[in-house]
Structures are given as C-alpha cells and as structure tokens.
C-alpha cells in the first residue's frame, strides 16, 4: 500500500487513483476511488450512485472552476503535478480552499518532491502523494522548513504585518 503524508503524518493510503483514460467498465462498487476530471464530467450520475468513497483529480491545465458546483460530492480533490516545476496547481489549491471553502482533502499527486511541500502546504494541500521513489518519512521534515512567513496564504490568512508584535 502506498504511503501518504496526510495532516503532517505518514499514513497508509486506501484510495485508488484511476488513470486519465479510465472508463466506468469494471469499476469496483465499494472501493474509494479518485477519478479523472473527464470521467466525472461525463458520468457524474453513475459515479454518485456508487457506495465507495469518491474523489476527483485535475491535471495542471484543468481549471478548478469546472468542479466548483460539485465539490460537496468529493472527499478528495487531487491536483496533479506533471512536473514539479509546473506551478499552476498552487493557484488551483488556493481557489479550492479560499474561494470555494472546500473542506475535504486536497492532495498533491504526480511529481511531488519534498522541497515543494512547504509551499504546497501553505496553498492548502493537506495530503502529499510523493513520487514513488521518495521517502515520505524524510520528506516530513520539510513541512517545517520555515518558522514564519510574510504573506497571507491559505494556511495563514493573516499576513505577517498583521501579526507582528
């Protein structure tokens, strides 16, 4: 079972991430699955009727606006980093949290490396599915890279200038 950083701890991950070209055929009824956006947009009705947990994942060129009205359906929204240097999903995560008040899990998937975790966490990600060849226990450290930050973000809506003693 894949190990996942979730809420600052390494845990076992029980969710099943479907490929981008996944179809409804043969989907287990009771597993917890994270489906690609296209599958959700086409088959939301069937997916809602399942018993298992439901999540959706967006690629970096997909806009979070496209699921804004559906967010209550998902326990997980996963945002994919095709390469770690593609920063679009930092903005998507903030929109999910700050604009749409999404309370479920926001998970980073794809090319997720430890040196980006601090920034991801600030933008509202609370779960990190590290690239398979990386050690989640070591990566935990980087969530504490900085003891303070200047600007407002999802994790700390007050900028430092409103918090300075």
């Amino acid at each position, binding site marked *: 079972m894949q190990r996942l950083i979730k809420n600052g701890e390494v845990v076992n991950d029980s969710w099943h991430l479907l490929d981008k070209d996944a179809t409804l055929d043969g989907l287990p009824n009771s597993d917890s699955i994270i489906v690609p956006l296209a599958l959700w947009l086409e088959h939301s009705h069937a997916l809602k009727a399942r018993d298992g947990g439901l999540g959706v994942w967006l690629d970096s060129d997909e806009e979070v606006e496209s699921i804004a009205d559906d967010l209550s359906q998902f326990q997980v929204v996963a945002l994919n980093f095709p390469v770690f240097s593609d920063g679009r999903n930092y903005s998507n995560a903030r929109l999910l949290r700050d604009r749409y008040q999404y309370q479920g899990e926001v998970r980073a998937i794809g090319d997720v490396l430890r040196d980006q975790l601090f920034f991801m966490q600030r933008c509202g990600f609370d779960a990190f599915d590290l690239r398979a060849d990386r050690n989640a226990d070591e990566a935990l450290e980087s969530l504490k890279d900085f003891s303070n930050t*200047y600007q*407002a973000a999802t994790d700390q809506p*007050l900028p430092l200038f409103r918090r300075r003693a």
Partner: protein
Amino acid sequence: MYIYDEYDQQIVEDRVKQFRDQTRRFLAGELSESEFLPLRLQNGLYVQRYAPMLRVAIPYGLISARQVRKLALIARQYDKGYVHFSTRQNVQFNWPALEDVPDILAHLAEVQMHAIQTSGNCIRNTTTDQFAGVAADELVDPRPWCEIIRQWSTFHPEFAFLPRKFKIAVNGAVADRAAIGVHDIGLNVVRNEAGEIGFRVLVGGGLGRTPIVGSQICEFLPWQHLLTYLDAILRVYNRYGRRDNKYKARIKILVKALTPEVFAEKVAAEWAHTKDGPATLTQQELDRVAGHFSAPAYQPFSGDDADYLAKREAEKGFNNWAMRNVHAHKVPGYAAVTLSLKPTAVAPGDADDKQLEAIADLADQFSFGELRVTHQQNLVLADVRQSDLYALWQACRKHGFATPNIGLLTDIICCPGGDFCALANAKSIPIAEAIQRTFDDLDYLHDIGDLDLNISGCMNACGHHHVGHIGVLGVDKKGQEFYQVSIGGNSGRDASIGQILGPSFSAEDMPSVMTKVIDVYIENRTPEEQFLDTFKRIGMAPFKERVYAAAN
C-alpha cells in the same frame, strides 16, 4: 534603510539551513541535477561557463557599508577577489565553489543579506530609482513600497513556480530612472488630486526575445490594495501564462495575446474576490516600513556651498566630474554622487575587494554609511555634503571610480557576455572596452552629451540593448560572433524599443561603426538636441547610409 527584525532574520536563517540541506542532498546524489536546478536557481546559483555564479540580492539597490565589507570578505575568501554589479541592482560572484555556497549564505545572513529569488521562475528583486528619497524631482519615495513588495514576494508560496522569471520595478519621480516600462510589472507611485497615494500599474513590458513596452491596466490603484492587486495579476499569469514554450512564457506574451484590456478585466475579476481581505495594507504597516527610510540627520544649509562652486571654477578635472557624476539633491547643500564603475579596460560593473573596502569607508565618511547600486551598474553615495565633494573626488580618483562619464557614451551597460555567461552568443566586455578606447577624448565625450550605450551578449538582453539609445546585441552566425546595432531605444519615460540599423558587424568593425553613428548625430544635431532627439527628427536613413556606405 530597512533593518531586519527578529522575523526577517529568522526567515533568512531558516533559508540558510534549508539550502544547506538541499546542497548536501544534491552532493550526496539524493537530488538529481534537474531537481536541484530550480532550487539552486531560486537561490541565485547558476552553473556557468567556468564555475558556479552566485547572485546576491540587493533589495532595490540599497546596501550599507557593513554589507559592502561583507561582500569584500566573501570575494576574498571564496572567490577571486572581485564582484560584478548587475543591471538588476544585484551583485554577482563569478567563482564560488558549490560546496561553499551554504557558508557564503551564512555570512550574508549575518549582515541581513541573502540570495533568495535572485534567479529562477519566480518574483525577482524589485528595482527602483537609485536616487530614491533624495531626488530633486521625486513625488513619492518608492523605497517603502519596494520593501513591502520584497516581503510579499519573498517565498510567496503560490508563485514560486511561475511560467518564467518575473520582474517588478517602482518609480516615484518625474523622470523614470527605474525603467518601469520594460518590466513585467511597472509601478509608478503617484498622488491623486486629493493628495492620496496610489499606483499607476503597467504590465507586460520586457526585453529579451520579444521586447515590448508595458501597457497600463490600472490608472490609480489606492495604496491599501497594492498586495491584493499584485496577487491577482500574478494569479492570472500563473494560471494562464504559456508553459509550453519558454520563449513565449513571459507575462508580456499573455498580455499581448489577450490584449491589455482583456487581461485587465481578468485581473479585476480575480481581484474582486480578495480586495479588502486581510492582505489589504494597513497604515500601521506603512508607517512601520516608511519609518526605516526617514531622512538622515542633514545639517542645515541655506544654498550651494561657495567653496565647492569656487573649486569647480578653479579645477577643470573636478568640474568635469561634478558635471557628470554629481546629481541634484532635494536638500540644499547636499548632492548625490555616482561612483563610476566604468573606467576603460575594466569590465563594466566590476569592483575588487580593496575597492569594496574603500567604497564602504567612503560611505561611512561621506554618506551616512549607505550606498545604492544603479541599474546602469554604478554605485551611488546619495547624501554627500557639497562641502565634502572635493575630498570625495580626490578619494574616488585614488581608488579608480572618479571617471567623469556618468550618462555618457563610455558609461556602458554591459552584461558579462561570452567571457563568463554560458547563455551568451558573443563576448560583450571586449566590445565595450574597444568603444571606450575609441572615445577616450573626454572633451569630445562631454560634447556628445547624454547617451545610453547598452551591450548584450545574447537575446536575453541582460545588457538592456533594446532600450539603449544605441544598442548592441551579440549574435552567433555559424560559430562566429557578430554584433547587431539598434538605435532609438529609451528606458525612461515614454520608453521605446530601438530599431535595428541593418546587417550585423564583426567585432573589429564596432569602434568605426560607433564613430560613424556619432558623426551623423554631431553633423545633424541642433544645439539643444540630445542623440535621441536628433534620431527622432532625422530617422534611421542617414545613419544607415553612412555606416553601410563606408563598409562597402
């Protein structure tokens, strides 16, 4: 200048620790070259032609004597004894060992310095007028705004992986000495009719492969909203800027593709969600930051210093220097002084460790211990008593920065070029030197008058060739180095991009090409005209005719 409090200090110290571990993991093979790349770039560390290059941030060009001494120590201890001041008002070490960089950062942190975001696809060092706070033509001091932007942009979590680098400049004077028209975001601090402070916001300017002058997207942004509005611009760019082609990834391409009007609408729509939120600036914060930039303890003088004026009359060399290197100051009896880092045969913007020590001493002795770096790659002592100018001039001569050429043809903006930079197509420093040698007659140089000559070794335009009155761009043709000349660029108010003269020239031809261009100007100018005025009036044809006729 801004002095760190415990929060600022903790953040740079956390960074040193973080980068030390990242470097360790890279050297241990736990981080690949490509994974380490953006991490080291966001810390100003390039792998260059001969060695790594480390770019250290000088926020909006302000630096203290103590910090300059630290740079001298680092140059001596970790480098080959000199530094290079860059067109982003930063400073570069050309020969540090990768392994030493964490220690260098620790040294820097001791004097409230760092290398954060001096490179990479993130928000870079914000730049401004080198005469900020003292310029006679200043309307609003831009420095507090620069510092507020510095803090906002430092480790901004949402914008650490933008499509491309991102540069902001702020101007608060009548003249534009910050080149705001050719930045990703240009901010002009202004007052409205009610006397309230706000910003005229330009976006989408820039040099490089597609040089464009920025477009106004907001005429007057009340100051309280600066950061939320910047967030909105950056968010639109982060989401919709092109990422498929690095040459089309700058915000200027997005603004052009959408049109400035549509881009402005998108920003306004985004901003509507965050306007008046917690990131709205407070008077208390503005007062706190502005308090760091209050005027030093000037002595009261009623007017110009008589002895200074008399010495100018008496000594031609001093007068030449005073004409070019001494600048009007808002306080009577004071002047701002540019130390020229452009003597002939020295790479423009270079200074060695002994000069740095001397510069620090001069700052302590003559200018309240503070200096500014200019985007023309010189240094400024901003608060010198007129009565001290003669003594300062003598000291500058002794140390080699009294060349009286500020704003003249030999005060060349020049990137490090093929001698140092791995990106360059051609050398730039030897071209600058050859032109400096050709125009070695000081009376003639002064007669030519104000003229920006900018030289870049490649399309990335670190030497700002597009906005030189005369611009030179190094190009590679089948493995050989050639130089393309442009005329009519301008980085000031009403910024413009230079037009290309015609086919490029060999390095040997450059001095004579430059001579011919200047000859055409001298022959055609009216008594009041500067080079750019004459060019605007007579156009390209006479220049083209002269330069290429002679070449045939």
